[in-house]
């Protein structure tokens, strides 16, 4: 919650502009992500929150040019890394980008390591993909990296196979692999969902430390608002393929503007006070292709009005660095009816 506070003058490391992703299947095209724009600066910790299916993982994959085309592809917008559009990059520049500039870690550390290779070899593989150094030096680097992500007895552990490690350890190995070539942006797609709570904290602490030490930007994709509150500088809230709220982390928690964010916060049990009942958001998120017209949250929204269905959805900035896509803010109203 520090670093990138006022970096507007500096060109962003990554900027996503009006990204639109569609899934084509049998002569119909479903929209997965629509009009998503945001920027990430060097050293910044950005959180993206949303339910499963809201398009956050697709957005992340597009930043690596890894959309599972030809059926799922970006049909509009730009994803600029250092001024270059990732969406139009060819094979070899993409391979150079991946690992070197942008790295990613995944949700399930159980299946993200190759079971037939030792973890040391796997890190060496990654290093050798991008750097022409000898195997021995690469191995030494691998051991250093393992030590850097707090794996005890790194030199011995490097010879272990993935099944000999716990889930938390494997996620550390994944992180070591991801930072092996000093990427400037690390995307973490629900990195702690499969881990238990104490390990979660250690992993996030580790990511945050690496961000500070290496000046690397981190995009954390999660559905856990607590995690966001703890580590992120800025937050994007996504719902049904759109960004519904964009804010500094403090102002998001202090004053959520979009009814959906409000609902999300209401469904998390606060630690400080006793709550009799958590307020759940009614209904289910609509699946892509079955999105309602206008505001997509309107059928579930406690404050919906008839005109929501025809409103042309856009982010409305009501305070500096705090915007929400809700009709309630069109004339400077707040979403807090209570």
């Amino acid at each position, binding site marked *: 919650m520090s670093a990138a506070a006022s970096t507007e003058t500096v060109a962003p490391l990554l900027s996503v502009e009006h990204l639109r992703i569609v899934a084509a299947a049998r002569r119909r095209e479903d929209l997965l992500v629509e009009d998503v724009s945001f920027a990430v600066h060097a050293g910044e910790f950005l959180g993206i929150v949303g339910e499963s299916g809201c398009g956050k993982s697709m957005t992340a994959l597009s930043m690596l040019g890894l959309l599972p085309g030809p059926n799922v592809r970006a049909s509009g917008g730009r994803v600029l890394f250092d001024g270059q559009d990732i969406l139009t990059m060819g094979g070899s520049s993409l391979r150079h980008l991946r*690992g070197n500039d942008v790295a990613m870690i995944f949700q399930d550390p159980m299946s993200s390591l190759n079971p*037939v*290779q030792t973890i040391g070899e796997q890190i060496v593989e990654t290093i050798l993909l*991008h750097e022409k150094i000898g195997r021995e030096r690469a191995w030494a680097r691998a051991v250093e990296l393992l030590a850097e992500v707090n794996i005890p007895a790194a030199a011995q552990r490097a010879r272990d196979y993935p099944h000999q490690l716990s889930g938390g350890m494997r996620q550390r190995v994944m992180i070591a692999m991801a930072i092996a070539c000093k990427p400037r942006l690390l995307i973490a797609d629900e990195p702690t969902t499969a881990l238990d709570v104490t390990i979660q904290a250690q992993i996030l602490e580790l990511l945050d430390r690496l961000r500070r030490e290496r000046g690397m930007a981190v995009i954390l994709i999660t559905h856990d608002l607590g995690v966001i509150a703890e580590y992120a500088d800025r937050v994007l809230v996504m719902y049904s393929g759109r960004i519904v709220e964009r804010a500094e982390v403090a102002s998001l928690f202090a004053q959520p503007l979009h009814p959906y964010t409000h609902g999300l916060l209401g469904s998390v049990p606060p630690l400080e006070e006793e709550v009799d009942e958590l307020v759940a958001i009614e209904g289910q998120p609509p699946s892509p292709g079955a999105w309602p017209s206008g505001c997509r949250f309107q059928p579930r929204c406690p404050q919906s009005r008839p005109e929501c269905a025809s409103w042309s959805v856009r982010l409305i900035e009501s305070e500096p660095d705090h915007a929400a896509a809700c009709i309630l803010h069109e004339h400077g109203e707040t979403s807090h009816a209570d």
Partner: protein
Amino acid sequence: MTNISTTDHTDLQPAPWLALFGEGAMSRRLFRSPTFAVGFSIVALLVLAATIGVWFSPYQPNSMDLTARLAAPGPQHWFGTDNFGRDIFTRVAVGSQMSLLVGLLVVVITGIGGALLGALAGYVRALDNIIMRVMDAFMAFPAMLLAIAITAALGPSLMNVVVALAVSYIPRTARIVRGTALVVREQQYVEAALVAGAHTRRVLLVHVLPNCLGSLIVQLTFVFAYAVLAEATLSYLGVGLPPPAPTWGNGIASGREYIVEAWWMSLFPGLAITFAVLGFNLLGDGLRDVLDPHLRAET
């Protein structure tokens, strides 16, 4: 949404094959399976017969002794002699060299061809239809008919028999490897390798292929058994290795005319075939029990 939880598939990974050569946990589990132990013993016995067994015999496989034509099994000739007075034990032992050689070569070629084609079809989606339809075309012929046709066209020789059998078995092997590769390609470590900037070729060789080896090894033990049987069949039909070479197949064939007076001429090569096929099948079953986690629960 792309991170479809892959945990359901993880138990499909035939990953532990590596441990076969590791600390011994796997080999101990293998030998605890009676199927594997019996199969392994039979195969070991065959290999011994093919290598050392030949030295025990005072006879040459092609040296004729017309005074001892069609001699019954006894202390002089353990398995008896044939219509030229040649020692059948020696011929069966030397024949096992032929059978094992053919089996081995077929397994090596089938393994390499099947693994590459299968992994390519399973991983590179664009090639899937092309490769597999060609494989289907080959599979439309019964394997034996295809092998006979190929050897008949190329002429009977060791290499031609091997080629004919490999061509017949590659499609089946490729199909199995493709199936495993389809599971492996969805694993997150494949995606992670792509994210790290790996080339398709690299992902294929380093990540996809090694993780398909478990099912491939099992399949190849069966291919070995089929190849031994098929080689014998081809020799019996006269399209395999040409007659002076002692093979099990032509041993049975030449004994056919003398089946009434000299049953041992056909019996012993026949038993050898039975043993070899049984041995490799048991070996394969045992391996599958250990390498295929779906069956592991029951065993």
